[in-house]
């Protein structure tokens, strides 16, 4: 492994460490921008969906992976963002305003749910957000005057300065731009005092407080940012599905979002994106091999959710670092090749630590 030679404190504040990683990310971005020129419409559409879930994943990662607050209600934020964007567009608001507005309104809802749940931690928070998500889901279904109820809500094709953002390509580029922006802002947050305060709260609330961190304010901000980002993803999701159904923003979707951050690896933005990729690609992979599986396994109706469940269980049991943890270990393995020592990657034994008290 080659460590860059450090000559100043500012160097530690740059996002890309060393010229190698700067080039790698530039190439990645160029490839992403060029993909629609090469791939067919179906794949471009699916990749757009992947980006949208990656955005939602980053939003949840800031909350769960970095602030240590679990939300099992983020599907509600996705839903609020989707409906806000769709409704504003239908009322003639331009896309460049309706999408940020969707993010802002969702952020407001995030703070709204964040404030009363501030005193809760861990388990209680998970249950409370679960309840919140289910209430919002019901509201979306029953408030048919606004949301169209069970008939759903048709989403208009957005346009920027008269230029229509149409089809799979439109969603793809819109989602890619938002994703890059969201990742950039998240990275900025993480290298700023706010990001450190979030990590501090995750690791020890009591000493975070003694360091001058206002728990209530920081947690509310974290909730707001997470919800806002998820709301942006929701706004784009509306264009991805083109017809909103209220029951698609249910507990199952919330759990999928949390699964993204868990499978990806808690406490890493890479993880959120890896997780989203995994979550979106697995169904495609299953569809591809479905007919070739022995014993008619491919025809079983519950195959997909049970596979997700199984993978989630296996990840938590055997690789709590998620895909990102595996990735880091692989990198270390190749960097040290052939001098790799096994114990370096061994998980430290952890002991039961009470979380009943905070």
């Amino acid at each position: 492994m080659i460590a860059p030679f450090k000559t100043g404190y500012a160097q530690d504040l740059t996002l890309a460490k060393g010229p190698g990683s700067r080039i790698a990310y530039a190439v990645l971005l160029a490839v992403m921008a060029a993909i629609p020129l090469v791939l067919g419409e179906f794949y471009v559409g699916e990749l757009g969906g992947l980006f949208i879930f990656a955005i939602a994943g980053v939003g949840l990662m800031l909350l769960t992976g970095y602030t240590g607050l679990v939300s099992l209600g983020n599907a509600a934020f996705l839903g609020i963002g989707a409906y806000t964007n769709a409704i504003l567009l239908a009322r003639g608001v331009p896309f460049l305003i309706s999408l940020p507005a969707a993010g802002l309104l969702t952020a407001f809802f995030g703070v709204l749910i964040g404030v009363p749940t501030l005193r809760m931690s861990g388990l209680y928070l998970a249950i409370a957000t679960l309840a919140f998500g289910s209430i919002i889901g019901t509201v979306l279904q029953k408030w048919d005057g606004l949301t169209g109820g069970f008939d759903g809500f048709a989403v208009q094709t957005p346009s920027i300065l008269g230029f229509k953002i149409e089809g799979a390509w439109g969603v793809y580029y819109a989602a890619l731009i938002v994703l890059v922006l969201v990742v950039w802002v998240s990275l900025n947050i993480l290298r700023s005092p706010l990001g450190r305060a979030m990590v501090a709260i995750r690791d020890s609330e009591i000493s975070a407080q003694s360091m001058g961190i206002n728990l209530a304010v920081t947690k509310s901000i974290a909730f707001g940012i997470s919800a806002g980002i998820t709301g942006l993803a929701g706004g784009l999701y509306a264009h991805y599905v083109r017809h909103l159904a209220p029951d698609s923003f249910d507990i199952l979707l919330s759990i999928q979002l949390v699964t993204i951050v868990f499978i990806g690896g808690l406490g890493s933005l890479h993880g959120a994106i890896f997780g989203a990729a995994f979550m979106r690609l697995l169904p495609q992979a299953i569809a591809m091999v479905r007919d070739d599986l022995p014993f008619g396994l491919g025809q079983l109706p519950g195959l997909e959710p049970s596979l997700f469940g199984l993978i989630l269980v296996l990840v938590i049991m055997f690789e709590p670092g998620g895909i990102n943890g595996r990735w880091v270990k692989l990198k270390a393995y190749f960097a040290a090749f052939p001098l790799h020592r096994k114990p370096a990657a061994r998980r430290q034994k952890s002991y039961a630590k009470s979380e009943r008290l905070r």
Partner: protein
Amino acid sequence: MEDVLRLLQLSINGAATGCIYGLIALGFVLIYKATEMVNFAQGEIMMLGGFIAYTLVGKFGMNYWLGSGLAVLITAAFGYALDALVLRRVIGQPQFAVVMLTLGLAFIFRAGAGIAWGYDSVAFNTPFTNKLVKFGGDVVLGQDNLSIIFGTVLLCGVLYLFFSRTRLGIAMQASSQNQLAAYYMGIPVRRVFSLIWAISAGVAAVAAILLVPVQMVDVNSGIVGFKAFAAAVLGGFGSIPGALVGGVLVGIVEQMAGYYLPTGFQEVTSNIVLLAVLILRPQGLFGQVIRKRV
């Protein structure tokens, strides 16, 4: 007079549903008190218990009591195995990792049940199905609901005696309160924890069997588990009588909301109760606040 009767009817119905919530919540609380884990798959375990009972009684034509008893035992054994094979391995991981783990298990159970028993609703005949009891001519109650309430009370009595009188029950209480001390006293803490999982799975199976006359079993029955959270939280998440009282209260409030409020409210009642309790009185009705010492 009619209003009073209706109120009574709603209360009994609510209390019966509430007993089911309470029993599921009891399962949460038993496991939480002992291991600090929350089993989000508790509802799914109940669903499995219902299907097992259906297989034994409905399909194999076993005697109701015999088949039910066997189903409870099988489900309990399943709970034991679940802890021994899966959950024991994640002790020491953050609490919400366990939450996600059990959610993953819930997915697997649901899909597994779909594969094994199909996606149709099933039921079987019980001694209480479609039978009525008359009280003084005017009041007519279904035996099905009464059997749920009666069964719950009976089960609680048995559990109370078990925890307060038997060696194993006391060992379980000791392990819940202080794992290390219990271990030093020669209690096999890990096995005790697995047994607690077994009991909680068994209780879930009892709930499933009691519910059969009222509601058919299908793969989505486990959704009751989410309502049971409201019960457990209302009771203080850690108090066994609290879970039951919380369950009954949630059940009654839900029935009342369904009758007196516009449609849509019944579905969210339990969630609103849950949020309200968490915001206004996070320690629940019976809980106490303990703070971390530094």
